[in-house]
């Protein structure tokens, strides 16, 4: 009997274990799912600051005069709209207009771009890019590298995130707007990419540092110390999921996948079709013309019962009309929420729907997304 491949570890693996984290296999990575408790971690991010090791995510560099053209040919959003230092959310699509992965595109310079991709799809994305970029018109003179092993990535999220990070850098964080980045020295580590991005629905930053263990641990510990006065907690994948769900942010493999198109997922605003050619664009123009059969909807449970991933969704007549893509108790909102795909007609009528929660049918109301929006300052 052969052993399964050993789990991959980030540079902070020992640090998590020393903090007493409960570890779990996440797409082949040995990751912390929680430390002190999911609810406490979730609430720390909503009211103070939380720290996440997201080093398992991938970084793919595009360099050369053909870099922007290459990205534009494979990305649904338009990289030509970006200024240096700016970031946009986008996706790599199949020719059918469905999702290979969702990504963040960073413009470092005219000829230097960074794509940040999901951990579970890192290899798939890199292989897919490699086999498709050659066909992109104008994409000559581009060199694409997988830089994932070179970076540790740490997310600092919450209303006190900026104050926390400010203690460790001279960089003026107030000057970094949402979805912009800059370079600075953090905890003595020069050339740190400091991005105002995140997956929590709160203000916050993601920083990219060298992936050696001493540097990674030093910065991680410095952040924990800097955030101590704000009640900082290390946060695991459990809280990461409940936070992004309250903010109605898609998770690859749940709301978006290779069987779902951009319009079904409600991500049209990140898809720039006019005057552009990219893989999936033609299919999306056809879909746009006829409309979609199903749409992503937000649900709030109205009776006792928690809708969870994969549970069937039913209409008033008890017929199965869809399924929950992500569902969970919402620790900050203190209700039970879910995202689900249902027929477009059901979304239009706004009718109540039912979720099959094991032996029970539990009523749910359609609610506007996002479930949670952070208060304006």
């Amino acid at each position, binding site marked *: 009997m052969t052993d399964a491949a050993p789990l991959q570890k980030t540079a902070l693996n020992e640090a998590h274990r020393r903090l007493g984290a409960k570890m779990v296999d996440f797409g082949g990575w040995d990751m912390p*799912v929680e430390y002190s*408790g*999911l*609810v406490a971690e979730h609430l720390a991010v909503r009211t103070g600051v939380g720290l996440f090791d997201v080093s398992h995510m991938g970084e793919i560099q595009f360099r050369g005069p053909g870099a922007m053209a290459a990205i534009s040919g494979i990305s649904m959003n338009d990289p030509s709209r970006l200024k240096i230092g700016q970031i946009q959310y986008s996706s790599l699509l199949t020719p059918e207009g469905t999702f290979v992965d969702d990504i963040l595109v960073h413009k470092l310079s005219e000829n230097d771009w960074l794509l940040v991709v999901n951990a579970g799809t890192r290899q798939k994305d890199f292989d897919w890019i490699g086999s498709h970029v050659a066909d992109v018109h104008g994409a000559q003179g581009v060199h694409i590298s997988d830089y994932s092993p070179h970076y540790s990535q740490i997310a600092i999220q919450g209303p006190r995130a900026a104050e926390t990070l400010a203690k460790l850098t001279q960089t003026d964080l107030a000057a970094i707007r949402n979805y912009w980045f800059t370079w600075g020295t953090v905890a003595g580590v020069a050339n740190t990419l400091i991005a105002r991005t995140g997956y929590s629905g709160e203000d916050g930053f993601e920083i990219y540092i060298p992936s050696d263990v001493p540097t990674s641990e030093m910065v991680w510990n410095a952040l924990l110390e800097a955030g101590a006065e704000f009640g900082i907690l290390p946060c695991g994948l*459990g809280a990461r999921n*409940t936070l992004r769900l309250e903010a109605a942010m898609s998770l690859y493999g749940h709301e978006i996948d290779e069987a779902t198109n951009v319009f079904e997922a409600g991500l049209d605003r990140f898809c720039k079709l006019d005057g552009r050619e990219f893989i999936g664009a033609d299919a999306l123009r056809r879909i746009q013309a006829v409309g979609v059969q199903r749409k992503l909807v937000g649900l709030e449970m109205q009776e006792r*019962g928690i809708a969870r991933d994969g549970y069937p969704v039913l209409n008033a007549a008890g017929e199965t009309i869809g399924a929950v893509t992500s569902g*969970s*108790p919402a620790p900050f909102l203190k209700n039970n929420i879910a995202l689900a795909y249902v027929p477009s007609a059901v979304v239009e009528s706004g009718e109540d729907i039912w979720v099959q929660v*094991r032996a029970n049918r539990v009523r749910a109301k359609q609610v506007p997304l996002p479930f949670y929006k952070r208060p304006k300052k």
Partner: protein
Amino acid sequence: MAYPANLKYTKEHEWILVEGNTGSIGITDYAQETLGDIVYVDAPKVDTALEAGKSFGSVESVKAVSDLFSPVSGTVTAVNVELESAPEKINADANSTWIIKVAITNPAELDALLTAEAYEAFIKEESGH
């Protein structure tokens, strides 16, 4: 964690406190620790028939659902309604927080359950210590 010697245990991490012909049933500290913050308890109604080894409800944390298996056969005589609004009581004190009480119909079934010592040995093995 010391498990009370006056309780009997199952391999599915339930405990039962026997007083005469009545049993109080809950989940162990190991179970609540593994589950995390408990948000929901799905308990059966009074008068429901229970069968030893069969599922009688579930306990849910934010991220998981865990079935509850009955240590004994019998009939439900009481349900801890406090857990409807405060399920986190189980996290706070799993070993003393009962979920249901049962009229035991076949006391011989208790002999098949684990003692505190046997349960502690069992979870040491489970958690790989």
